């Protein structure tokens, strides 16, 4: 799906020519995410105004998705619509701040939707800082095809989130994952991609072969994953748009898995198992030499780049147990960064560059945790029978992972948690799911 933006490319949007209804102000309407929010900020999201007759459903649905995005962060709480004392009747009508103060609504989001003769949808919105009697930032307008209305809603929510937190958003993004059916001993797996909130699921492969651990390219248009299509594990690359796929051009007989793109979108790091020994190699997605980066008799796997491409974090049992290490992008000496009690695996560098997320096993439990890139300030965010495989939201504030329940009927599901350890929630998927990988923000 490609969203046509009204103006220019990227996250560009149109500043609405209307004068701001009140003086723009930063006001007290501000959430500092890193401090961890205990009390969610009350927000009112009235139905958007339908400016054309056939925009009526979109006006309601878009406002609901905007509200769901914001509430889903755990940073906001929605004031129920039946409590409203007044509702906007047009996009430009003055805001009755007193009506919203009475409800203790700190933020108010208003919007309008219009359909064009060309099937295009136009969505505009404003954010109000109720207790400052002021609009927060300028009004914005997005345009796109009607069938991409959810993306426009996510863009509105991203803009609101950015204005209130000062951080980039993450709602206009997708997640590639493994969709699972069948019992534990006969799991059928398909690659699938969905919006970050579980909507718009699209299958990318059938379930005729085991597929594992899909990973997006930095632009989100390609996916690396491991497939048993030949009967043996091989790293494949798949074009998300055309769903065409092929094995990477590495040694035909090589067993390869655990791939990840480098930030250039061309370099690939992966694991190769040879005579029982697993090491890390580097190659190029469109063909290139296979360069060995580690050469020890221990298991080296789960490699991933730092956002600037200069470092690789990976796991190794060279010390006797699974631990995390960092080495240069061309290999060489590695520095161990995990020293706590237990085993550490599946390290992933935050897109902000500040943290590394990992899976930890200790005392028979699994945890998702984060640490600084030098291994300091380790914090465990979750605990369960089996949590594994973290992936970062585009803004580095939320982590999605796989949680598996215990026992013969055990099933896997996708969960998310924020980096303060709050707001643990299940990501809605109809089928079981595992191995999520979050895309960058869409363009």
């Amino acid at each position, binding site marked *: 799906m490609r969203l046509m933006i009204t103006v220019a490319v990227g996250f560009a949007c149109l500043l609405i020519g209307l004068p701001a209804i009140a003086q723009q102000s930063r006001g007290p309407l501000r959430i500092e995410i890193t401090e961890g929010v205990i009390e969610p900020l009350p927000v009112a999201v009235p139905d958007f105004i339908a400016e054309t007759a056939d925009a009526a459903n979109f006006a309601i649905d878009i406002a609901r998705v905007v509200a769901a995005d914001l509430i889903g962060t755990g940073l906001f709480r929605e004031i129920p619509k039946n409590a409203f004392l007044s509702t906007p009747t047009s996009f430009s009508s003055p805001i009755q701040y007193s009506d919203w103060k009475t409800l203790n609504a700190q933020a108010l989001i208003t919007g309008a939707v219009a359909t064009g003769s060309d099937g295009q949808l136009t969505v505009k919105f404003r954010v109000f800082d109720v207790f400052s009697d002021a609009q927060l930032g300028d009004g914005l307008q997005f345009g796109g095809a009607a069938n991409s209305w959810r993306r426009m809603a996510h863009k509105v929510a991203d803009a609101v989130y950015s204005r209130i937190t000062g951080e980039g958003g993450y709602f206009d993004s997708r997640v590639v994952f493994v969709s699972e059916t069948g*019992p*534990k*001993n*006969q*799991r059928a797996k398909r690659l699938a991609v969905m919006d970050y909130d579980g909507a718009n699921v699209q299958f990318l492969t059938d379930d*005729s*072969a*085991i597929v*594992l*651990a899909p990973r997006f390219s930095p632009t989100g248009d390609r996916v690396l994953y491991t497939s*048993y*299509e*030949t*009967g*043996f*594990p091989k790293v494949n690359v798949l074009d998300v748009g055309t769903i065409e796929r092929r094995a990477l051009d590495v040694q035909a007989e090589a*067993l390869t*898995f*655990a791939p990840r793109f480098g930030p250039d979108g061309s370099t690939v790091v992966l*694991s190769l*198992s040879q*005579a*029982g*020994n*697993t090491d890390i190699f580097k190659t190029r997605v469109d063909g290139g030499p296979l360069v060995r980066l580690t050469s020890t008799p221990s*298991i080296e*796997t*789960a490699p991933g780049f730092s956002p600037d491409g200069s470092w690789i974090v990976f*796991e190794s*049992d060279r010390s006797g147990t*699974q631990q995390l290490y960092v080495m240069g992008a061309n290999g060489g000496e590695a520095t161990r960064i995990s020293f706590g009690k237990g085993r550490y*695996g*599946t390290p992933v560098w935050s897109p902000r560059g500040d943290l590394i997320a990992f*899976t930890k*096993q200790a005392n028979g439990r699994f945890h998702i945790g984060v640490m600084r890139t030098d291994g300091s300030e380790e914090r465990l965010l979750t605990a369960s*029978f*089996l949590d*594994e*495989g973290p992936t970062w939201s585009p803004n580095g504030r939320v982590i999605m992972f796989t949680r*598996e329940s*215990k*026992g*013969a009927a*055990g099933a896997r599901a996708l969960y998310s948690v924020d980096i303060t350890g709050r707001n643990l929630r299940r990501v809605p998927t109809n089928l079981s799911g595992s*191995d999520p990988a979050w895309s960058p923000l869409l363009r």
Partner: protein
Amino acid sequence: MKLNSKTIVMAAAIMLSACTNGGGFGGGGFRGGGGGTTGAASDPTSAGYFQQAIGDRVLFAVDQHTLTPESSALLDLQANWLLTNVEFGAVIEGHADEQGTSAYNLALSGRRANSVIEYLVSRGVSPVRLQPLPLGKERPIAICSEETCYNQNRRAVTVVAAGGLS
């Protein structure tokens, strides 16, 4: 009550086949692996005989890939069979239990498959007839989340097929 010996043998054969069917992964890329026509267990030159009369799998301790003396003894029998039945090749599936992260378990199961391959080669089987297939924790045969299941899942399975590797 007295059972005649023939009934006992048949019952045992059925139980064995119930145990072994589904034990092999048998997914793509390997002709005849795991299911299908394995031949009668009574035919000593059949894959069915290899599975049921000799035994197709060895088990491993938690996070280990070293062979126990019992495993080595079984692999001696497997090696002898392969040296006799030279038209067969084998895929050596490596498996891990569910405790552990996916990529690590895949690597660990590769070690287990390789332990079996190295042993069979040390007994004279040509390495070109043997191919490792690491499956990590993808194909458990026992599905409870207890050690009674885990110890069956930490395994390497020798899946033989006439005609060798695909």
